[in-house]
């Protein structure tokens, strides 16, 4: 297991370097001179040509691209991603303090998706070609086709404005979590629901289901306790993979429901042309996804010895 872990980590290194390069190269897309932009902010007036030239020298912007990249990389590996133009706080600290909120949204989204997909997918398989199956098919198509930010507003209109049972936005109580998790979960549930259905259909045809039925178990026990448990393995795997995407997609939910997570912070930074934050966001999120993928791979290796021994 230790050797497997080492091999995986060594493989991650070039990919992480690539991510850092993408993040660094992106900052060269900005229109205008970063030194002038920084001075304009600090001085609150148009800087003189000498001031700009001096700032370029101080920031090391006169060096060639490759040299600047290596310098920046040296800072980045020690956790120095620069400072936010807007708030002055170190970018890494700013991202880390906001990350738990984004993480919470993504977890809620996955749970919401599973809460919708598992029962509907299961029932669609049990009552195949029944009205339940057709409804689940329509729901899956709708879930995949509706813009989730729009769904969020429809839900707010219905539950917060008309019925007044849930708060419009904000966070704190469990009621605040319902609409964000349904919003994010609905879109993710579409494909999970179809997957649950097809996996359930396969599981229901297996010998152990027939055995369970033959020995007189209650139908609900056979379906939920035996078939669903087996069908859940691939579904949970895909849900785990979806989790990474939900971290990225949390931007919209954070904006609508006013949750001060990473996504909201970055969108605000974009409007404020706070480039170090945008750059730091790419490095940070890229690193988080690498770690998630590593965790998924390791869990396979832990569950299945063939994976960790294969190829060595």
């Amino acid at each position, binding site marked *: 297991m230790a050797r497997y872990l080492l091999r995986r980590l060594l493989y991650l290194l070039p990919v992480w370097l690539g991510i850092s390069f993408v993040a660094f190269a992106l900052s060269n897309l900005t229109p205008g001179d970063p030194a002038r932009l920084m001075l304009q902010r600090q001085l609150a007036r148009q800087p003189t040509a000498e001031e700009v030239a001096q700032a370029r020298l101080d920031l090391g912007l006169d060096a060639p691209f490759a040299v600047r990249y290596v310098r920046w990389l040296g800072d980045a590996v020690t956790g120095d991603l620069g400072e936010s133009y807007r708030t002055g706080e170190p970018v890494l600290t700013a991202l880390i303090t906001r990350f738990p909120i984004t993480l919470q949204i993504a977890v809620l989204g996955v749970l919401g998706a599973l809460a919708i997909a598992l029962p509907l997918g299961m029932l669609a398989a049990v009552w195949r070609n029944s009205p339940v199956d057709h409804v689940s098919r329509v729901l899956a198509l709708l879930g995949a086709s509706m813009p989730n930010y729009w769904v969020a*507003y429809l839900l707010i209109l219905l539950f917060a404005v008309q019925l007044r049972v849930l708060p419009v936005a904000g966070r704190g109580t469990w009621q605040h979590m319902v609409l964000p998790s349904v919003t994010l979960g609905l879109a993710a549930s579409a494909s999970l629901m179809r997957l649950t259905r097809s996996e359930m259909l396969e599981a229901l045809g297996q010998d152990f289901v027939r055995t369970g039925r033959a020995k007189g178990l209650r139908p609900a026990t056979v379906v939920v306790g035996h078939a669903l448990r087996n069908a859940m393995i691939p579904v949970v795997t895909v849900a785990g993979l979806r989790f990474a995407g939900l971290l990225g997609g949390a931007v919209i939910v954070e904006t609508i429901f006013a949750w001060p997570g990473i996504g909201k912070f970055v969108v605000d*930074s974009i409007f404020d042309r706070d480039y170090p934050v945008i750059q730091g966001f790419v490095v940070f999120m890229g690193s988080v996804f690498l770690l998630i993928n590593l965790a998924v791979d390791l869990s396979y290796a832990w569950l299945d010895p063939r994976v960790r021994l294969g190829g060595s």
Partner: protein
Amino acid sequence: MIGTIIVALFIIVAIAAPFLAPHDPTAVDARAILAAPSSEHWLGTDNLGRDILSRLIHGARWTLGTAFLASALIVTIGVTVGLVAGYVGGLLDDILMRVVDILLAFPSLVLALAIVGMLGPSLMNVMLGMVAVWWVDYARVIRGLTVGMREREFVTAARCAGAPAPRIIARHLLPNVVPSVIVLATLELGSLMLAISALSFLGLGAQPPTPEWGTMLNDGRAFFQRAPQLMIYPGLAITLAVIGSNLVGDGLRDVLDPRMKR
């Protein structure tokens, strides 16, 4: 079938927008602000007294036009890279696929967001951001198909007949991947529309007064409790367009590429 009708209707609306729209989509009318639906304004008006129906009709041009254009660019880049990497192989293949690996390490929205963030908010930059991120899916799929065909007899025959690599790629390999490309492009057109309008909704895409659907939703946010029609109709338009292209994609997949059927 239903999907084809929906998509065809949207395309007709987009093309004939100036003739179909009852009003100028950006004409402000101070006497009819947030007006309810009436015989003059079928779907009511927005916070500046602009006719919502006219804005929706013109919006089809912006939203669908951007998605189609982005899709065309994505397909061109992705298919070219996939074919070249798959056929040429070797070091070039390694380099291109490492680039694909790195871009796939991000969820698409993160990188697109960062690109738009660096370039500045505009519909053009949103499109560039999407193209920069989405071509990798095609490159990977098409490379896989190409590697599978490289050693087949018709390719060997062409090579023996002295055809140069560009000719083999364009005349022999490309036609064989076209069905998969069409299916993939239609299936992804819906997600592309959703992603583009999501960035517009965040205020990063088309800027007011452009009647892009995502931008209209963003404009309507401040008034949605008083005048829900500002948000309901543009969202409905996006949903219908995406449903249409998803249905067409599913249908095409069954006809053109049964192997992809899950």
